[in-house]
């Protein structure tokens, strides 16, 4: 066997691995049920989230999208009334039933909520917060990472002269990008975004959307949105929910151009 042969072989195998990687599952939800007393909020959810893709969750208001997202990083802990059962696997850990340290599993996911919630500290410290929680103490490293992540969301030039001002002094659109930057700074692999543009003006929304388009090369994005056009622009994979259950899922083309169920047809008509 010649050297060139070995080279081509390894090349092929690297490529193959990447392809496998891309189509592999990063997060797996099995038999997830959520109740509040007698109210069944999530009904037997089984879902696989493909890696490095944008998965869009669609569905009418109150169908359980936010609750599903909160289950994924166990923020349901904050709500006693929610009874959660089932399993959610990430890297072989079941976040719902793990004995491992939940905060470190949560760091595998970045959260972007409907409204920005900047921490009550400076712009700089907002981004540094999660980095420090990872145990990184090296000032230079933190500084570097803060700058890099602010650049990533296109905020660096706007804030580099006032890194020590309170984060709340930024506009809402800037705050949302700051929240994204601080989420990215902990190097998550998944971004959970719950209607991240619904409180924003059109231009800030567009910026966030463009960011997502760039980020999806390196991150898995799970996006809840009510804006169908946004879903069409961003989605690789669409999950349609109604009344706590997954009704249909597939590629945007399949769902938007060829909906199978009446519920989805109705939603698409009303949503537009």
């Amino acid at each position: 066997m010649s050297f060139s042969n070995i080279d081509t072989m390894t090349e092929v195998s690297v490529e193959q691995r990447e392809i496998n990687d891309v189509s592999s599952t990063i997060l797996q939800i099995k038999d997830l049920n959520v109740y509040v007393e007698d109210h069944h909020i999530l009904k037997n959810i089984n879902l696989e989230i493909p890696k490095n893709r944008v998965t869009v969750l669609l569905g009418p208001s109150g169908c359980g999208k936010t609750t599903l997202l909160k289950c994924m990083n166990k923020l349901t802990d904050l709500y006693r009334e929610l009874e959660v059962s089932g399993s959610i696997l990430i890297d072989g850990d079941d976040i719902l039933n793990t004995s491992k340290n939940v905060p470190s599993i949560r760091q595998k996911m970045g959260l972007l909520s409907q409204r920005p919630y900047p921490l009550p500290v400076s712009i700089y410290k907002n981004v540094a917060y999660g980095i420090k929680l990872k145990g990184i103490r090296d000032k230079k490293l933190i500084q570097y990472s803060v700058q890099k992540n602010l650049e990533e969301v296109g905020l660096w030039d706007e804030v580099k002269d006032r890194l020590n001002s309170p984060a709340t002094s930024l506009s809402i659109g800037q705050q949302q990008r700051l929240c994204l930057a601080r989420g990215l700074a902990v190097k998550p692999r998944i971004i959970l975004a719950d209607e991240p543009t619904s409180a924003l003006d059109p231009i800030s929304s567009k910026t966030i959307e463009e960011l997502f388009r760039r980020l999806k090369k390196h991150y898995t994005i799970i996006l809840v949105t009510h804006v169908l056009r946004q879903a069409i622009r961003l989605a690789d994979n669409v999950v349609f929910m109604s009344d706590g259950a997954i009704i249909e899922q597939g590629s945007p083309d399949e769902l938007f151009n060829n909906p199978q169920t009446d519920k989805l047809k109705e939603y698409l008509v009303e949503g537009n």
Partner: protein
Amino acid sequence: MKRKNIEEGIFKILSAVASYSIIAILAFILLIVFVKGFGALNLDMITKTPKGGFYYGGEGGVLNAIVGSIYIGLGSTVIAIIIGAPAALYINVHLIRFKKAQNVVRYFLDALWGIPPIVYGAFGFTLMLYLGMNASLIAGIITVSLLILPIMVRSFDEVLCTIPKGLHEASLALGSTKTEMAYKVMFKQGFSGFITAVLLSFARGIGDAAAVMFTAGYTDLIPVTFDEPAATLPLAVFFQLSSPIPEVRERAYASAAILTIMILVISLVARFVSHRYSKSNIN
């Protein structure tokens, strides 16, 4: 249309009357206290302790009571913060998933808040005797701290309640533990509210007479150690006001004026601080 206007007008007048009468009452209190105490309001009052014959109109001032009140106010505030801050955080962080327990704790705190200070005084007195202590600075501090503890915890609690759920979620999602969330995020977010709560509790602490009457005692000296008795301004007012001698009664009003000024200053500081911090922190 016209009727609406008349209704609107009447309502406006009633609200205005209510608001201005509150201001008028405050002004009236200040006026009485200052007019009646004016003759005795001099530098001696705040720089000297009572000399011989002070209570018969002799020389001296109420520095002993001013200092005693400040000591008791500070001491009890510190104790109440040390116990109160973790308690309030506990209610809001660890009990967050146990609504019933939260409600029970809040109910008890509200009940404690409603108990009159004289009952705290009686309790403190019993406790003091049981421990074999005398009326002293420390006994006064402990009793007043019991009195202001529920006020402090509930005010902290109210501040923490106004912190949006989204902020809790954000800090947990970044990888905080609940304790880190409490101390790094919620504490900062609520800072101005906490300062206000602390200052108002302090004001309550220095203004109370019933809780210190049997526990701190009264003395013409400034206490140097915790086991010495301590004078307080409310009691200085009380004792001097019951005197038959007009000069002494005038001094009672002057003491009341000093106490009132101290409390007004504290609430002004509270306002200033909370205004400043809320401007820089909360949108």
